[in-house]
Structure formats: C-alpha cells, structure tokens
C-alpha cells in the first residue's frame, strides 16, 4: 500500500516534468493526454493503497519515510507519506475527480494558445494536493498547502493577458498567504513546545500545552483553513477566482483545494478538541458563511459565480460538521460535494463552450433546448446539491444538520441556520437551472456539434452524473454507516455530535421539505409559464449584489492605507531623497573636483609655494613634537 501511495504522489509530478521538459516537441494534444494519464495512474495508486488498507482491516495507518528532509537541532522532519483511512479517502477523491476534470479539459481547452502550460499546471496542482493529503507530517502538509496556493495562483491567472484574471490571481494568493502565515505561526508554537511536527507526536504534545497556547495553535490552523476554504471573513477571493478556465474552477475551487480546510480540521482534530472554543468558532464561521453565500448567490448573474457562492455555502456546511465534531459527516459531504459541484461546473462549462465564452445567464435563455444531455446532467447535479432523495447530497448534508442538535443553545441556532440554508440552496440552484435551461429564448450554440461537445467533455460529465446519484449511497445514517466506521480510527465523531435516530429522521424530513419548498419558489419565480415577479427590495438587493460590502471593507482597511503609505513613501522619501541622492552625489563629486582643480594653476610658483608652505608647517610640527 505504501508503494501505491508513492505512485499516487509522484505520478502527477512526473507528468508535469514530462510536459515541461518535452515542451514544444510534442503536439498540444499530447500534453493533455500525458497529464490525464499521470493523474489516472495516481488514481490507480490510490486505489491500490485503499484496497490494501481495507483488506488489512483499515485500522492502522502506516507512515513510510523516504529520507530525512529537514533536520535542525532537535527538530526532524522526514519526507514521509501516510496511508490511513482519512488519507486514502482523500487520495481517491482527489485523484479520481482530478482525472475526470483533466480529461474534460482536453476538450475544453482545445485550441487555446498555451495548452501545454495549462496541463503542466494541472498536473502540478494534483501533485500538490496529493502532497497535502498524503503528507506524513505537518511540515509536508504545509508544503502541499503552499504549493496548492501557488498552483491556484498560476491557474487563475492562466489567461495572463486579462487584467481581471491577474488581479484575481493576486487576490487569491494574498489571502491564502495570510492563512499560510497563521498556520506557520501555529506550527512554530508547536515546535517550540513539542519539538516535533509529526502527526501523532504533536497531537500527544497538545495535551500538555496550556490552554492559551493550544487555543492559539488552533486559531492559527483555523486561519489557514478559513483562507483556503474561503470562509468568512477570508472568502472574498473565491468569486474572483472564477476568472480562471472553467475546469480550473471545477477542480480547484470546488472539488479539491477549497476542501483542504475541512481536511485540515479533520486531520488535526485532536488539537482542536483541546481548544473546543476555537472548534466551535469554526462551526460558527461555517454557519455564517453558508447563510451569507446562499443569500449572495440569489442575485448573481454570472453562471460561474452562482456556482462559486454555492461552493462557499456548501463548504460552510462542511465546516459546520467538522467544527462540531462530526468529522466523518464533514468528510462525507466533502466527497459528495466534489462529485456534484464538479459536475455543475463542467455542465456550465459545456454551456460556456457552446456559447463561445458567454457567462451571463441572462444571455443564455433558450440554450437548454439545444443541449438536452447537458440539461439532464445539470438537473442531476442540482438535485444532488439541494439534497433530494436519492441523490448524493441528501445523505451527506442531512447528517451534518442533525448532528448539531445535541450541542446546546448554539446547536439549535446552527440547526435553524442550516435548514434555512437548504431553502436558499434550493432557491438559488433552481433559479440557475430554470433560467439557463428551461426558459424560452432564442440563444443557440455558436457552432453545431454532434453530441453537444467532444467526448472528452461529455464522458466525465456522464461519469460524475452517475456518481452524483449513487455516491451518497455509501452511507445512510443512522441505518448504515460504513464511512463513519472507516474513518473512526483516525477521526472519531465526538459523542456530542452523534444524533439519535429520531433526530436524524426528523431533520431529514424537514430538510427535504424545506428544500422542495425552495425549489417550488424558484419554479414560481423563474420556471413557470406565467412567472411571478420577484419581490422588489432594492436595499437588500444592493447589499447582496455588493456581497455584503466585504470587498469595500477590506479595501478601506487594508488597501487604501497601504496605497497611501506607499504613495507617501514614494513621493517624500524615494523621489526627493533616495533618487535625488544619486545625482546629488555626482554633483558633489563634480563640485569638489572643480574646487580642487583650481589648485592646478599650471604655474610653477604655485607648486613651489605649496612645497614651501608644507615644509614650514612640517617644521612647526616637528619642533613641537620633538
């Protein structure tokens, strides 16, 4: 199983290197196939590790160290991979969904100027993400963390001639860097007090830390998780990240990278359990985000942005689950979400591809008639997202919601917020579906293609549609919980987050009813033959359109003072002082030279005079000294 893990980790890296080194010697399509193959090889390795671990009972994770990577004083960190239930689950999800998306990219990015660079970056991203989930110690996790941030930056800004793309890439990177910094600080504290960043050792050491210290560490970890997973308040980068190509949005900003935060909390849950307050803060952040994002998604008109806010909202659910201690539920929702969110993005990609780049849903009315298969896939994904039985989201989301009931007064608040979130989910998802796919309109695809798109695009879409249907059948709490049992050795659900079966059934029924209500309202407003008018609330509309003014707030707090300071520095210090110093120095040298030059009269008498005067002075000195 370890061999499988190493293959899984390094196959995508080999793909990247192959593409980079072969360069223009291979045709563009070859780059895409190299990348796809490398990721599917990684999936094979992940499968191998998983099966092996499963056959051995699935309890014991194994760490395998290749060599000591870093040794400094008493601190050692090896280049090690960890194969345990949690990491194999993530490996499978990441490599599997990535493989499908890279395959899809072959069709989507066909004809782009810099395809090879794209596929090199994609493989590199998969490698980074696998490093993150397979890393056997916190240091490698941090390395993977940083590398996925880098890949995200490179891929968001892939079309680098677009200023909006470049700005979005920078925004994503800077906000993620903030999270990286807090995580690094947390790790420093861990090293200071424990001397090790190995998983088990640092978890054991956490028991000995003072309450403040462990809260600080957890806070640092939470900062990183929130930045990476785009939770409030570090969420503003995710909608802008939609500037990247659609497969990138599907892979990085839906299925894998943004879920890294949830994985982090699940992986380091022993530390969080010592800092229960911080863990509950994470849950609160998740609840707040799921509500806010759901509201904002109601007014978005860019197809990708609706899905992006939906991602933010669903990750809010995952944070909520992980924060209250229901780690397996959070991870389950992570898995199903990867399926249907990637499907949503890819379906949107098919539409965008057919319309040659159009992303405004107001200009897509009527396309549904021309893309029937895509329409049905999108419907499957939407139903899964909203959580309708028997689609995948039903099983995963409801178990999170019901887990909140035993926590206390705030558990009730979480429960209500989460149910409200399901209403909003139904509303915005089907708003999107009805506007794009079922409304009357004149929009036609730009070029007639057989089968709506190349097979490289339609095949992954179909596979994900199937997974969105059956992917949730792996666990039906409280009757059948193989996933929770699988993850129990490493991420045991806290007792307080275990709902009773009554709570489960009641919650599921309520959630189903509320989601259907949401779908119904959407149908009334957007889908029915005689559409009702949307209620006019201009102030609320404006607030939602400005995304609760977070961007403006950050602009005022961070950007404007920094820009003012930089301008002041440039004007008063750099221009007037430093830049002038160069010419001034030159001027001074010139003036000194000119002054000294006046001594060179060329007259013999002057030189003799100086001789004489010098001698006179020396004689005086000599007399005085001797």
């Amino acid at each position, binding site marked *: 199983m370890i061999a499988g893990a190493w293959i899984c980790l390094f196959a995508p890296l080999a793909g990247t290197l192959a593409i980079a080194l072969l360069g223009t010697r291979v045709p563009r399509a070859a780059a895409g196939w190299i990348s796809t193959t490398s990721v599917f090889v990684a999936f094979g390795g992940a499968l191998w590790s998983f099966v092996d671990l499963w056959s051995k009972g699935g309890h014991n994770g194994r760490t395998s160290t290749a060599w000591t990577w870093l040794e400094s004083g008493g601190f050692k960190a090896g280049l090690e991979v960890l194969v345990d239930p949690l990491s194999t689950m993530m490996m499978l999800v990441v490599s599997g969904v990535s493989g499908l998306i890279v395959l899809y990219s072959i069709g989507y990015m066909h004809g782009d100027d810099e395809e090879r660079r794209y596929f090199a970056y994609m493989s590199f991203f998969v490698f980074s993400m696998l490093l993150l989930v397979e890393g056997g110690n916190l240091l490698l996790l941090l390395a993977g963390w940083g590398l996925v941030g880098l890949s995200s930056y490179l891929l968001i800004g892939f079309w680098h001639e677009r200023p909006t793309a470049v700005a979005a890439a920078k925004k994503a990177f800077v906000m993620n860097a903030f999270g990286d910094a807090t995580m690094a600080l947390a790790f420093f504290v861990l090293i200071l007090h424990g001397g090790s960043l190995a998983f088990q050792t640092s978890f054991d050491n956490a028991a000995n830390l003072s309450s403040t210290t462990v809260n600080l560490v957890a806070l640092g970890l939470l900062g990183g998780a929130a930045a990476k997973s785009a939770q409030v308040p570090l969420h503003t980068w995710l909608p802008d990240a939609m500037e990247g190509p659609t497969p990138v949005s599907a892979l990085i900003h839906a299925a894998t990278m943004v879920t890294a935060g949830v994985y982090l909390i699940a992986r380091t849950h022993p530390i969080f359990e010592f800092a229960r307050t911080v863990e509950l803060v994470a849950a609160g952040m998740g609840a707040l985000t799921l509500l806010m994002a759901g509201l904002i998604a109601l007014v978005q008109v860019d197809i990708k942005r609706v899905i992006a806010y939906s991602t933010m909202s669903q990750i809010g659910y995952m944070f909520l689950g992980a924060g209250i201690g229901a780690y397996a539920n959070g991870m389950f929702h992570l898995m199903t979400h990867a399926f249907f969110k990637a499907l949503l993005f890819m379906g949107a990609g098919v539409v965008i591809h057919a319309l040659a780049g159009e992303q405004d849903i107001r200009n897509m009315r009527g396309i549904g008639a021309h893309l029937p298969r895509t329409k049905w896939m999108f419907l499957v994904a939407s139903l899964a997202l909203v959580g309708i039985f028997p689609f995948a989201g039903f099983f995963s989301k409801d178990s999170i919601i019901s887990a909140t009931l035993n926590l206390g007064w705030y558990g009730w608040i979480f429960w209500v917020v989460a149910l409200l979130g399901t209403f909003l989910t139904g509303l915005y998802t089907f708003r999107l579906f009805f506007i794009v796919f079922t409304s009357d309109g004149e929009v036609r695809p730009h070029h007639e293609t057989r089968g709506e798109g190349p097979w490289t695009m339609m095949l992954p879409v179909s596979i994900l549609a199937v997974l969105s249907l059956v992917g949730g059948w792996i666990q039906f709490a409280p009757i059948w919980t193989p996933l929770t049992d699988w993850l129990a050795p490493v991420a045991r659900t806290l007792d307080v987050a275990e709902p009773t079966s009554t709570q489960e059934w009641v919650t599921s029924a309520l959630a189903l009813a509320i989601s259907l209500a949401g779908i119904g309202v959407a149908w009334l407003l957007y889908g029915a033959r005689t559409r009702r008018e949307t209620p006019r609330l201009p102030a609320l509309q404006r607030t939602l359109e400005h995304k609760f003014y977070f961007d403006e707030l950050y602009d005022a707090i961070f950007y404007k003072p920094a820009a003012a300071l930089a301008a002041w520095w440039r004007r008063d210090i750099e221009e007037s002082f430093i830049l002038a110093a160069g010419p001034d120095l030159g001027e001074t040298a010139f003036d000194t030279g000119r002054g000294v030059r006046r001594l060179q009269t060329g*007259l013999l*008498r*002057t030189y003799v*005079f100086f001789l*004489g*005067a010098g*001698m*006179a002075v020396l*004689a*005086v000195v000599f*007399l005085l000294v*001797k």
Partner: protein
Amino acid sequence: MGNFLVWVVWIVAAFACLASAVGVVSFRNPFLSALALIGNLGSLAVLYLLVSAEFVAAAQVLVYAGAVMVMFLFVIAYIGPRQETPWAGGPTWQTAAAVLAAAAIFLEVIIAIGLKAGGRLAHTEHVNATFGSPGWIGRLFLTDHLLAFEITSIVLLVAAVGGVILGAHTHHAQDAEASL
C-alpha cells in the same frame, strides 16, 4: 686685535652677502641680478675663509663664480635684453602667501636653531691646521666619503648629457607651432 679684525671682516662680508642676495631677487635686469649673485658668491667665499674652509672657499670662487655664473651670463646675453616688472606676477594672494611662507621658514630655522642647539652652539672646537686644507678634503673624499664622490660624478655626467640634448638643434625646429 685679531678678533676685532675678524669681526669687522665678518660684518662687511655678511652685509655684502645679504645685500647682494636682496639685489638678486629685486633687480629688473637679469644681468644685474647675475652680477649681484657673483657678489654674493664672493662674500660667501670670504665667510668660508673665516671658518677655515679654505678648499671650499676656493672651489666656490672657481666653480660657482667662475663656471656657473659665466654660464648664466652667457645665457642672459643670448636671451637678450628684457625688462619685466618683477613683482607684478600672479594673484595677490599668492604674493602675500609667498612672503608669509618665506618669512615663516626663516623664523622657524632661527627658532629651531635657537631652541634646539641652545647652549651647544656656544663652544666651537679647536681645529688644527689641516682642517679645511685640500689634502684633508681629498683624503676624506677618497676614504670616508667615496660614495658621495662617485655619485656626484655620475650626477655631473647626467647633467652634461642632459644639457647637450636640451641644447641641441632639432631638425624640425622650423615648426611655427610654439609647443615645448
């Protein structure tokens, strides 16, 4: 009586020496300056005699006044008559500074001698009859100070060669370009 006589001679010679020195520096006509220098050299020879340096006094008159000054007079005659305003040259600050420097040197030498030598100058040794005689000088040249003797001769040789080269007629002396 002998002492008195020596004093008188000394005063006359010293006065002549100093006056002629001032004359050298002051005369407008270079010819007169040269003549003043000859007077200076002569009075110096007298002073040398007063300190029993007979050979040096004779050499002074023969070499200096006899050869060097004649050379000077030749060149002055060759150059031809010219007048100049001796004190008009250069910016005034240089003049003032030059005077100051010269005065400073003079004073310093006096002070140095006064301060350092002090009492030790009071007593001069007795010398015997051979002091300052040619034979005595010659013996010194060939024994204790042979190196100085040889080096001096080389210097003279170099100067002679240099003089010839400088004075030689160059074939492109027809150049109207006045460059050195």
